[in-house]
């Protein structure tokens, strides 16, 4: 039944969205398996599920590394030169994310979900060479995703601080955009990576300072829209992978008072 439901997503995951979601049958089965295992594992961990639940919200910044899978150039040189196109670097590609966070913890293991809006920015720079000048034409992209990250963390209890490390996998769905350059992308994809961070226990409120690196967010251009003009600027869209470095700060509220540590305790 779950597989059937997810298969339905392939047709129209979000009614009204102009883009289609293309998920392979293989991924559909894997995602179904993942979701089916999730509650089972949670229950299997024992204890009252709600006692081990924390919820909250967070935000942060990210920077994207762009890997050009299939470059396309709108300019051709009649003398045999090859014109290069490049993408802006990490320091220029600052985006942001806002998300809600829900996590279930048990001893050292934590399963965290951080669904939210993740925005990535970058620019493609085309170089056009003339005898006495070289012109750079820049086309900017702003990609907004609804992303559903899931993280599995292993944490160490150091009283107020609980550092952790873990793995993350995320499903991202590209939201419609106004500019033609961004509208060329058709495929939302799955990315994966690693996270590190620390919890800071403030008794009733827990801060989660998190850094993560996710790799493999494919952005494949529609062949019908690969070449176009946006506000008159002609462009050729490449097929890309975004590797993403994120830093986030979350505020979590535990449904159960922290047992082992409070602000009034003293240390000797």
């Amino acid at each position: 039944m779950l597989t059937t439901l997810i298969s339905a997503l392939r047709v129209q995951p979000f009614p009204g969205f102009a883009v289609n979601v293309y998920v392979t049958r293989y991924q559909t089965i894997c995602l179904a398996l993942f979701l089916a295992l999730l509650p089972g594992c949670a229950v299997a961990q024992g204890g009252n599920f709600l006692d081990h639940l924390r919820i909250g919200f967070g935000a942060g910044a990210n920077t994207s590394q762009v890997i050009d899978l299939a470059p396309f150039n709108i300019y051709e040189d009649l003398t045999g030169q090859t014109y290069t196109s490049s993408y802006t670097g990490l320091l220029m590609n600052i985006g942001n994310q806002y998300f809600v966070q829900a996590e279930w913890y048990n001893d050292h293991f934590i399963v965290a979900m951080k669904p939210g809006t993740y925005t990535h920015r970058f620019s493609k720079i085309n170089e056009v060479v003339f005898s006495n000048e070289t012109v750079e034409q820049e086309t900017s992209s702003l990609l907004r995703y609804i992303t559903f990250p899931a993280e599995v963390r292993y944490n160490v209890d150091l009283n107020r601080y609980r550092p952790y490390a873990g793995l993350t996998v995320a499903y991202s769905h590209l939201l419609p955009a106004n500019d033609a350059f961004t509208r060329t992308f058709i495929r939302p994809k799955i990315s994966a990576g690693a996270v590190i961070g620390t919890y800071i226990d403030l008794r009733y409120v827990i801060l989660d300072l998190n850094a993560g690196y996710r790799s493999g967010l494919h952005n494949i251009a529609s062949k019908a829209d690969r070449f176009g003009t946006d506000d008159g600027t002609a462009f050729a869209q490449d097929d890309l992978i975004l590797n993403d470095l994120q830093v986030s700060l979350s505020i979590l509220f535990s449904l159960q008072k922290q047992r082992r540590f409070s602000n009034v305790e003293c240390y000797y």
Partner: protein
Amino acid sequence: MRKIIPYLLTLFLVLPGCEIDQRNILPEDGFTKIYNHPEETLAFFPESILEMDDGGYIIVSAVKDEFSDIEYPYTTLVRTSASGEVVWAQSYEWLAPCSRLIRQGNRIGFVAMNPQFDAYFVEVDPSTGAESGQEDLQTTMPLHAFSDASGKLLVLGYDFVSRASVISSFGSGLTPERTTALPINTDLQYNIQRHLNRTGQFYPFFIGEIEGEAGTAYFVNCFFNYTLRTVFLDRASLNPTGNIYSYQTEEGISAVMSKGENLFALTNYYEGNNYILPNVAIDVSASQNIKDFAADPLYELTFRAGVRSAVLNTDSAAYILFVSQTNSNSFVIYQYAMDGDSLLHTHYREFDQQVEVRDVMQSADQGLVVLGSIRIVGKYRRPLLLKIPVDQFLPENL
């Protein structure tokens, strides 16, 4: 710890699924290419495009060098792949190539002139671009060349001695068949020279063929009797049978499309505006004023806009397309039904620099190929090639 193993297993299962199948993502169906030359002193005036058997294209351009001792532009051919990448580019000393790259059997060539204004058919090797032959066409100042459905070559030239437009037809092997001179009765050599060296008003000289078996066969847009006219010619004798005229040489017809026998679709410009007549019956044996026909204005087109027309055949229907450029730097494509005068859709391709359409054709895969020019960074005039997939013209996508 064992409980977490299913999560990790799932993660490893999901990750390989990120591989994306790109088999369906190919650039040949639609692309935009701008062909740049690094030399700033060159200005490219693309004239026409021809599709090759492998799906690639050959573009012929007139290239004007501001430092050249010769005022007329020389000829450049650019061979591209099916997706628009440059395969080779060759320049030739032949001057002022006129529209239409000619393909006759295995022969590919263009019509241009030497410094003495003598018109030649210049044959090139399509695999390398090397010049492989030349044929004197016995006419001067070539303005347009056209290959009809039977492979016959027709060339429009200007005879500056007799002050006449000259239409010559050539059979297989470029053997001369007939020549018709249409007297202009006034000296327009200066206008013609300015047209050929791309410094003055660019006139819409063209030759077309009327669909049908007998009687009038061709229409020629040329100077005739003081005026820029569309002249209808008899198939056998090339004698004029009728014409459509406008006001002297300043106004005229910019594109004509035959819809069979006496039915036509055409565009014209008059008193600063452009007009379209998508379905008009014309008496090809009479002399008529273009203002006698009801026309729809096209205010968005540039002043005296060049217009190119083509029939687009799809699996389900055929359409008439008129392609031009707007005042807001866009290519505009008016898609009309073949039967009647219904405007089905208007397509736009907006650019941030000045563009001008120069040729249009349907490719073997039914897509539309538009050849134009664009001023890169607002300065340098270069060829622009636009390929639009046929599905963008289908009714379900309009």
